[in-house]
């Protein structure tokens, strides 16, 4: 080891407190980045692998009923490689010992000779060998503790059928398992079942026919061309519009998740990069100031400018060398934990999780960038510092009256307050950066408290204010008003509000969107649409209301006309005026009076289903009654769905909040502690002089701690604003037609953020207290400046 390396080592030991503080921030930043990056890579990589191995289809289409021989025509469409017809349908399931309504999505398995797309991965058991056997989706099976051999009852098209579980499986088609139309997954009340083609075809009246089609494409095929050709071919058979993976539900949710992971990675990486750079800047800058003469001596003895600069650069490099592996380890550990949480929502047969060399390289690049940004200025000073100049003492710092004093508040300030303000004012840039650093910590805290509150608001508004039914009942086929009257007659049903819902394609110019057009009763009370201020909005006499986000997507404004193409019934396309927009957080859609929808469809007073409000204690009885009705396709229990969603989210929110709080606290402590150490180093002599003049330890301590708290208080409001800004960035980045998170930060979020920052400040004060109390008065005064 050369003498210069020894010096480096001992400087490092001398600065260990600050080095640890910086390393902690760096470790936190790299940890977060590595966590998000490895999760992104794991999810994206596993998905790609899973798709390839289990032959996930590329184009999907639903039809009402098409004959099997039509598949041959589909295969001749240019660009189509393989086509697989299936029967798919929704049923009500009965699980022994479980009283709630459960929806099952039945999917037929490939027939002999079919290409075998969307292949099922068997976790346990085997594929069905008989017509009354079924493979059960894993999440659903787990939720009910079902195993191969267990019985399940399905009410298919009105007929009750007893099935035996032959195996437990997964499919690339249902990585994210959610009932179509729902916003939250509910593994207890929704499950996927795979059965052989024949029994499903019999049950759904599809013998020799299919109602679902999956395609793979040749390499040179254009997806849109295939979709268009397919739509044309399937139209006479009730085609509901073909689409690529981008509109496939499971794929769609996973895409959103991956996008969010990237936004998080970028946001948090940027924050940590900034804070780390700032801390390095302060610490290295201070070190260079105190070692001016040492720099001069090294140069005087013939060390070149590069050698001396490199010496100081090595200090930052060492922190990188310490911080990166620790950050990688932390990130890998957090990432593994987060991946397990992801597996609660997204089900893969395996998770190809690893820390890629690319991530390691990225972590080093990230840390080096922070080090370079943070130390460039200081190193340039080392490089330029003329050796002779360095031998002369530094010019005394220029102090001014602080802003507060100049504003005429001098009389209000005691000498200690004046010293604090002047000292902060002397280095405005550093003060500003400190405030910004602490503010970022505060902001992250605000951000970390935000998620829980925002989700509460989404749930409150959507399921407490807009949607207030107990049960949503959908019929297998459009029904007459009688069906609603029958529901109203059930004992325990307080109110019934029938609705008409139809699948539509909305088109404006070259933009289009597939959604449901919901026809609501005039005086709807169980399902209300809300305006921008979240007040219930009346339904227009004519025309549609669109979710504001959808209106933006389609570039439509109230008063414009859009084309509505119905994907059912007579499949008419009509030009309809947009009467206004409504605000909602979950999903997007179009709303109108029920009569308007019936009229547009060219039908009488048909109903798709109804919302029910129950009397207290009537729930179980109503469920029993509904179960006995063959025309009830599905029953959604609002409260149960929300509860199950809350339970599932609770863990992930807790994890996120914990990680973010730790990160934020590490930033706050890192910045404040460094500030206190620097202040102590720069002004130790001054503070010791005060002690010599008769100030007590407590008074001197108050001076330093007062400075720290001044910084912290200055940082609170900017920190809150930064927090709201980050929340805004996050929700803008996360917003999609699936859901929009409201900008809802509760006062308690600010309060907790503020308290954590002040606690971190107090902790930093306590950490330097020992050093402050140990100031050697005589030695400090003897030391030459």
């Amino acid at each position, binding site marked *: 080891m050369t003498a210069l390396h020894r010096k480096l080592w001992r400087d490092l030991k001398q600065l260990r407190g600050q080095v640890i503080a910086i390393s902690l921030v760096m470790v936190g930043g790299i940890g977060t980045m590595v966590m998000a990056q490895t999760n992104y890579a794991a999810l994206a990589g596993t998905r790609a692998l899973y798709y390839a191995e289990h032959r996930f289809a590329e184009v999907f289409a639903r039809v009402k009923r098409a004959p099997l021989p039509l598949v041959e025509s589909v295969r001749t469409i240019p660009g189509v490689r393989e086509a697989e017809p299936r029967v798919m349908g929704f049923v009500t399931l009965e699980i022994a010992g479980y009283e709630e309504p459960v929806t099952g999505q039945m999917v037929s398995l490939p027939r002999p000779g079919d290409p075998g797309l969307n292949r099922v991965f068997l976790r346990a058991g085997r594929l069905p060998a008989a017509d009354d056997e079924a493979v059960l989706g894993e999440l659903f099976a787990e939720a009910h503790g079902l195993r191969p051999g267990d019985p399940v009852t399905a009410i298919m098209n009105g007929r009750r059928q007893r099935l035996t579980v032959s195996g437990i499986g997964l499919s690339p088609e249902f990585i994210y398992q959610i009932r179509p139309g729902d916003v939250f997954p509910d593994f207890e009340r929704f499950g996927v079942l795979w059965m052989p083609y024949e029994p499903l075809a019999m049950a759904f009246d599809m013998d020799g026919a299919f109602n679902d089609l999956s395609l793979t494409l040749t390499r040179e095929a254009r997806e849109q061309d295939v979709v268009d050709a397919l739509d044309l071919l399937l139209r006479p058979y009730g085609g509901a519009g073909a689409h690529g993976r981008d509109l496939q539900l499971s794929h769609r949710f996973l895409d959103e998740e991956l996008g969010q992971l990237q936004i998080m990675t970028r946001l948090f990486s940027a924050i940590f990069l900034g804070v780390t750079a700032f801390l390095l800047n302060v610490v290295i800058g201070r070190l260079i100031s105190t070692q001016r003469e040492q720099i001069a001596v090294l140069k005087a003895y*013939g060390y070149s*400018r590069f050698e001396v600069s490199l010496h100081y650069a090595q200090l930052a490099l060492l922190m990188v060398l310490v911080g990166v592996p620790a950050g990688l380890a932390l990130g890998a550990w957090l990432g593994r934990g987060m991946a397990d949480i992801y597996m609660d929502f997204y089900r893969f047969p395996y998770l190809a999780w690893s820390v890629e060399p690319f991530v390691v390289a990225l972590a080093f690049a990230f840390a080096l960038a922070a080090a370079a940004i943070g130390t460039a200025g200081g190193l340039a000073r080392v490089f330029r510092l003329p*050796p002779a100049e360095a*031998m002369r003492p530094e*010019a005394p710092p220029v102090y001014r009256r602080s802003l507060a004093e100049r504003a005429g508040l001098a009389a209000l300030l005691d000498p200690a307050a004046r010293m604090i303000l002047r000292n902060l004012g002397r280095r405005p840039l550093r003060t500003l950066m400190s405030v910004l650093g602490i503010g970022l910590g505060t902001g992250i805290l605000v951000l970390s408290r935000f998620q829980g509150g925002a989700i509460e608001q989404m749930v409150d508004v959507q399921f407490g204010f807009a949607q207030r039914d107990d049960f949503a009942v959908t019929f297998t086929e459009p029904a007459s008003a009688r069906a609603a009257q029958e529901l109203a007659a059930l004992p325990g049903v307080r109110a019934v509000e029938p609705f008409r819902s139809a699948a539509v394609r909305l088109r404006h110019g070259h933009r289009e969107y597939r959604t449901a057009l919901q026809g609501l009763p005039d005086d709807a009370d169980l399902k209300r649409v809300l305006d921008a201020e979240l007040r219930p909005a009346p339904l227009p006499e004519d025309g549609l209301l669109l979710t504001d986000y959808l209106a933006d997507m389609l570039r439509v404004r109230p008063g414009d006309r859009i084309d509505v193409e119905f994907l059912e019934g007579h499949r008419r396309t009509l030009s309809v005026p947009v009467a206004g927009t409504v605000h909602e957080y979950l999903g997007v859609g179009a709303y109108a009076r029920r009569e308007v929808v019936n009229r547009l469809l060219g039908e009488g007073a048909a109903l798709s289903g109804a919302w029910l409000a129950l009397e207290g204690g009537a729930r179980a009885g109503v469920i029993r009654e509904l179960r006995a009705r063959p025309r009830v396709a599905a029953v959604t229990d609002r409260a149960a769905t929300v509860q199950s969603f809350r339970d599932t989210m609770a863990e992930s929110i807790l994890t996120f909040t914990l990680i973010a709080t730790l990160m934020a606290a590490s930033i706050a402590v890192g910045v404040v502690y460094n500030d206190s150490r620097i202040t102590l180093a720069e002004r130790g002599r001054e503070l010791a002089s005060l002690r010599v003049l008769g100030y007590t330890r407590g008074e001197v301590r108050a001076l330093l701690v007062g400075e720290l708290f001044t910084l912290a208080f200055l940082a609170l409001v900017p920190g809150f604003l930064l927090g709201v800004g980050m929340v805004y960035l996050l929700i803008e980045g996360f917003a999609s037609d699936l859901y929009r998170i409201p900008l809802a930060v509760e006062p308690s979020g600010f309060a907790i953020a503020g308290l954590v920052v002040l606690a971190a400040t107090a902790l930093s004060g306590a950490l330097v207290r020992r050093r402050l109390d140990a100031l050697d008065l005589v030695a400090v005064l003897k030391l030459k400046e």
Partner: protein
Amino acid sequence: MSAAPGLATPAPVFRAAGLTKVYRMGEVEVHALRGVDLELYAGEFVVLLGPSGSGKSTLLNILGGLDAPTAGVVECRGHPLTGAGDEALTQFRREHVGFVFQFYNLIPSLTARENVALVTEIAQQPMDPADALGLVGLRERMDHFPAQLSGGEQQRVAIARAIAKRPDVLLCDEPTGALDSPTGILVLQALERINRETGALTVVITHNEVIARMADRVIRLKDGRIAGVERNAARVDPRELRW
């Protein structure tokens, strides 16, 4: 300046002509040198005498390649220092110059031996750091940190550090300025011995008239100008000095 009279004129180690130096310090402009001409020879022990602010340190810094004059020329063994780039000056200091400063300027985080090693590691034909410390009588205390050494000991470490590279020139800026007189004399003895044994041109800056008696030549500076040059008939042994 004239060379030693009556002797065959050897080539000077340093030749300076018309040296001027103006620098800014904070908001003040300082005229440190106002036209200095000077020649210094190998093996000489030269004392630069003058009150504070007379430009002694500036002159020394320029001779040592630490600083550049505002105007004028300096050359060392015929090679110009003025106008030389930073790399050339660094190389010059690394190979030829040893510095001793008033406040020792040891690296506090390195032991005595390591402070010397700092220089021997980059020199071409250095002494062993232990030997260099032996020359100043500190062989026994070489593993001590600066904070564990007295002022005189620290200054002797600084001298060991300066001579360990076997420099052609030893430039000392107030080497006894921060020391009491018995300790100062110990340090001067070390300088004298090294000048005698290694033949390095030794330039000592001081404002202490007594020290001038141990020099071959005494150059007086005042207000940035040379006020006079004296040659001592004989060098006085530092042990006989008292102040």
